[in-house]
């Protein structure tokens, strides 16, 4: 809502400057987002009187004008506007003037003729085209009356006013009117606004002779009031009225339409005017549209209506979408003689839905949606009729039609001083609060610290004591409230075990060199279903914004691959990412809400170690990725052993992927992305892992119990063995640990070799076995015996050759 500072002064004295008013209002009620004086930045723009206007000899459209600019001699200005003519009072930008866009005007010659300035269109002095009266859109502006040449145009066009842009919150629709803003300003500065109603003089023709009106359902139109004006003369409104409209962002049209808009700005009451003679009958009926009916609205668009639309009909067909927009067929035009004027209250939700349905959000509909002052429906109607009569002549028919009406009621709220102080944490006394209610203009009766407050209909946002407490708080001033911390029973602020472990997971991965990425949870159907750990039905958005973000993800890897591709495209070739977040899984399509499961995934591409002056470079490989996962799983102290098993997954390399088990529970996988998949994602060789973190965290944990540090020395034995290529490390480890005896404490693989020095189809592995007895020093004999047993079994169970 654009609020004119000068207009506001008409209702109450405002001593604050526009900037102060904006700041005070922002702290007290509504945010004022901008304060603008239209003339700011412009200079040397004055009234000119075009004395003579002749065609330029060397041009088919330019004119040479002799213009009186209040000096002794007229000045010559060349003008290209099609509407320039002798006798006009116009806007002149003098040499060295500043016009819109910080353009400087200079003396010059146009096709050989001197031009000492410029005749201006309104757009050229900063008016948005949307508010320029239609007749001046394609030419210079012409004042309607004689003005004094040489005078500044700024006061004449309302450009010296300050325009405050109020950001109206949905609850404060009362400030979508100048009167509402005046009450609000008065409450803030402890002033009572005064309003003058224009005097209405009715004619002798009773309205009932001209028109009848009915409302089908009073719930749709609780109040519906009409007046009729006869024999009006359609012409432009007086300039002062046009200024008020354009400073509020509304284009002046003609004296009838302008009054409807002016009244809407004044009272917040949307008005509509119909051409009486274009109605097909003298019966106005407000009803729901029938299926199959249609209406062409003022903007020229056709709409097929539904039973959810309230329409105004002329007894046969719709002539307006109630509260939203009038019909083109009954529009006020230059030929209009007789006018039907409507002031009403329509059902807010239906108005809102109609406006949304046809994309017709208007000044009127936005007011009806949020509510209007029910006390001024008739007052606004009468004021509109009076002003139209004043500007357009003719006669106002006697009386008004009321097809439905409501009694505007004040709302009574009882509230105690204790309740106010209890909620605000203040120690306000009764006189202070009484003073605030008085400032707000709410009649109040107080007894024993209990206030009975009567809320006038102009503040329809206030229903309950919380609303009233807000009024007290804001007028008292939020800055004046004390600042304390909650007291009462203590609460413990700490992370839950799961939250701690998730944070720990993230810290571990960062220290392992992975940077955290956050990808989009919404993706395509195809990507949602890749790299999954379990079968799941898809969760689809009903009405997605784009096909790229239409399904909920079921894995974290596809997002990471997209992130890697983004980086590769920017020559960032060595990247390690992890993501911790939720995937959305459900058993079948019949299930609507998916389970939200915490996953963690990682992706590596390129080098994990750059070449350095003292180190060689190192590219990521399977074992690097596996090492990161291994280290991560160690963090959780899982009770069951972690096991890796070769596995086939469609998006993964068939020979370089391992399923990860904790005991017998499948919790995730690690491996190389299938080259075909990598190609599809436009990434190079990439290793990934994905874990169902919720499932991992749900596994049994080891209780860590401290063991005494061994007092007796450990003994080691190395064994190198040659086996068939198919034999896995896991098989060998199983044989060693199963047969190692009670003193075997650890087995470590330290070498793997397959190549020229070894028979084809075989490989060599070497292990260090560590033996220790916690209670005594091991003897050579004990160790030799235990070691021999391992060697025997390696030979017999795995056909190993001991080297």
């Amino acid at each position, binding site marked *: 809502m654009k609020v004119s500072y000068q207009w506001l002064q008409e209702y109450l004295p405002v001593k604050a400057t526009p900037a102060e008013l904006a700041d005070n209002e*922002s*702290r007290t009620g509504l945010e004022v987002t901008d304060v603008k004086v239209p003339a700011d930045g412009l200079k040397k723009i004055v009234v000119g009187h075009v004395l003579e206007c002749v065609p330029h000899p060397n041009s088919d459209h330019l004119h040479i004008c002799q213009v009186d600019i209040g000096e002794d001699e007229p000045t010559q200005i060349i003008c290209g506007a099609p509407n320039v003519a002798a006798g006009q009072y116009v806007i002149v930008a003098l040499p060295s003037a500043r016009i819109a866009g910080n353009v400087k005007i200079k003396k010059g010659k146009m096709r050989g003729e001197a031009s000492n300035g410029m005749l201006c269109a309104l757009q050229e002095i900063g008016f948005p085209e949307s508010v320029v009266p239609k007749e001046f859109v394609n030419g210079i502006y012409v004042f309607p009356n004689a003005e004094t040449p040489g005078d500044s145009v700024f006061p004449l066009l309302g450009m010296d006013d300050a325009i405050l842009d109020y950001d109206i*919150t*949905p609850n*404060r629709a009362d400030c979508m009117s100048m009167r509402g803003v005046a009450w609000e300003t008065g409450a803030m500065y402890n002033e009572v606004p005064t309003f003058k109603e224009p005097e209405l003089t009715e004619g002798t023709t009773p309205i009932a002779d001209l028109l009848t009106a009915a409302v089908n359902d009073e719930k749709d139109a609780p109040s519906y009031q009409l007046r009729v004006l006869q024999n009006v003369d359609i012409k432009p409104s007086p300039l002062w009225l046009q200024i008020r409209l354009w400073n509020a962002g509304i284009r002046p049209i003609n004296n009838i339409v302008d009054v409807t808009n002016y009244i809407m700005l004044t009272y917040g009451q949307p008005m509509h005017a119909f051409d009486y003679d274009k109605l097909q009958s003298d019966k106005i009926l407000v009803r729901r549209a029938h299926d199959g009916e249609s209406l062409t609205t003022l903007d020229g668009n056709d709409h097929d209506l539904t039973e959810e639309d309230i329409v105004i009909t002329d007894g046969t067909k719709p002539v307006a979408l109630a509260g939203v927009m009038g019909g083109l067929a009954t529009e006020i035009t230059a030929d209009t003689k007789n006018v039907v004027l409507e002031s009403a209250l329509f059902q807010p939700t239906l108005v809102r*839905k109609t406006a*949304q349905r046809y994309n017709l959000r208007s000044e009127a509909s936005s007011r009806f*949606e949020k509510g209007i002052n029910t006390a001024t429906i008739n007052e606004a109607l009468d004021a509109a009729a009076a002003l139209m009569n004043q500007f357009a002549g003719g006669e106002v028919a006697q009386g008004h039609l009321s097809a439905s009406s409501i009694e505007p009621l004040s709302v009574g709220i009882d509230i105690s001083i204790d309740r106010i102080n*209890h*909620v*605000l*944490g*203040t120690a306000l006394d009764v006189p202070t609060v009484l003073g605030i209610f008085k400032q707000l203009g709410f009649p109040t009766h107080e007894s024993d610290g209990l206030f009975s407050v009567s809320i006038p209909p102009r503040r329809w946002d206030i229903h*309950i004591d*919380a*609303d009233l*407490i*807000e009024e007290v*708080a*804001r007028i008292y001033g*939020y800055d004046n*409230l004390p*600042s*304390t*911390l*909650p*007291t*009462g*029973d203590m*609460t*413990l*602020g700490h*992370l839950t075990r799961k939250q701690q472990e998730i*944070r720990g997971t993230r810290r571990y991965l960062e*220290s*392992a*060199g*992975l*940077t*955290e*990425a*956050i990808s989009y949870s*919404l993706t395509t159907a195809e990507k949602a279903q890749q790299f999954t750990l379990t079968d799941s039905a898809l969760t*689809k*958005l*009903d*009405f*997605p*914004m784009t096909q790229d973000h239409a399904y*909920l993800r079921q894995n974290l890897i596809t997002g990471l691959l997209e*992130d890697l591709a*983004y980086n590769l495209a*920017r020559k960032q070739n060595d*990247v390690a990412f992890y993501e911790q977040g939720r995937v*959305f899984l459900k058993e079948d399509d019949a299930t*609507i809400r*998916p389970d*939200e499961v915490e996953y963690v995934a990682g992706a590596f591409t390129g080098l*994990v170690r750059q070449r350095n*002056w003292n180190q060689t470079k190192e590219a990521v490989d399977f074992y690097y990725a596996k090492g990161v996962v291994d280290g991560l799983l160690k963090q959780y102290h899982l009770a069951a052993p972690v096991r890796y098993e070769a596995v086939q997954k469609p998006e993964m390399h068939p020979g370089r992927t391992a399923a990860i088990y904790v005991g017998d529970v499948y919790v995730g996988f690690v491996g190389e992305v299938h080259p075909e998949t990598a190609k599809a994602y436009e990434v190079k060789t990439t290793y990934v892992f994905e874990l169902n973190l919720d499932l991992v965290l749900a596994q049994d944990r080891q209780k860590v119990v401290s063991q005494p540090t061994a007092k007796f020395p450990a003994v080691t034995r190395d064994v190198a063995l040659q086996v068939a290529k198919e034999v896995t490390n896991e098989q060998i480890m199983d044989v060693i640990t199963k047969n190692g005896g009670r003193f075997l404490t650890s087995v470590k693989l330290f070498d793997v070799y397959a190549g020229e020095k070894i028979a084809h189809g075989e490989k060599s592995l070497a292990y260090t076995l560590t033996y220790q007895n916690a209670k005594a020093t091991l003897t050579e004999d004990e160790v030799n015996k235990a070691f021999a047993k391992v060697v025997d079994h390696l030979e017999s169970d795995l056909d190993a050759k001991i080297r």
Partner: protein
Amino acid sequence: MTLRDTLRTINDQNLAKIQQATNLKELNEIRVGVLGKKSPITNVLRGMKDLKKEDRPVVGQFANEIRDGLVTAIDNQKAALEQKRLDQKLAHEKLDVTLPGTPVVDGTPHVLMQVMEDLEDVFMGMGFQIVRGYEVEDEHHNFEMLNMPKDHPARDMQDTFYITQDVLMRTHMSPNEARELEEHDFSEGPIKMIGPGKVYRRDTDDATHSHQFFQMEGQVIDKHITMADLKGTLEYAIHSFFGADREIRFRPSYFPFTEPSIEVDISCFNCNGKGCAVCKYTGWIEVLGAGMTHPNVLKAAHVDADVYGGFAFGLGIDRFAMLKYGITDIRQFYQNDIRFLSQFNGEDK
């Protein structure tokens, strides 16, 4: 020559040799030569039997003094030589300490998570618990319970991704608060919670809009929680996060789920309130919304609004991160350019 003179001569000759020794081997040879079984001092002591009985102790003592003196001299010279050898070794080991250290791999937490954890820690310090909630919510908890019945104009402010008519992607973190209100047992104490998490809006992604972003909301509900408590809590949190020198301004505002509602501005940290492009020349930057929980919200969760009340607040984690680090395009958070992400490696912690 008397024995005494002999001893003196031995002493003088050997002291000079000891002090001139240049390595430990040479010194050891001197030691063996002067103190060993065949050394001159031993010879002198053997010759003592020829002396008069009364002279023997005097000469013996003198011989011992000479011997001790030589032993000390050898030890001193040995220490000096060892020190010299060490010094030489260390000098040889000298490195160019300006060569770069061997790099240790490290990843960076996402800047949004850093901001989120910072805020979590601030509020946990004040006794708040963290609640995560659901990203897929039902309309009842996302809207209805928060005083936003169907057709409420405020729903227009939040374009929603629906899955069905009743199930949607949460548009804010408020459903967490509604669920907590429903489930909480006040006999176990007050509610003091924050809910940080991912939210979704049906928006086209551009520099200032994202269909996915992070919010944090919180609430405190008890028998006597005041607006002054809200003010104090937010002041503490804002000062912790944005710095103690920020000025704070509270403005009236509107949210369906709070009454009174406020918006909180901080003095612009770029211009300190003078006015600049960051604060759009107002001197103030809006950082969060808050208010006293609307009685309808309490009633919808079957909490007695006459007994219990409190406050709620909400903030955008993306917005906080953008403000704190001067990030101008929200899409950068989700594009995951490694060059962008690794800037925030926590050096200011």
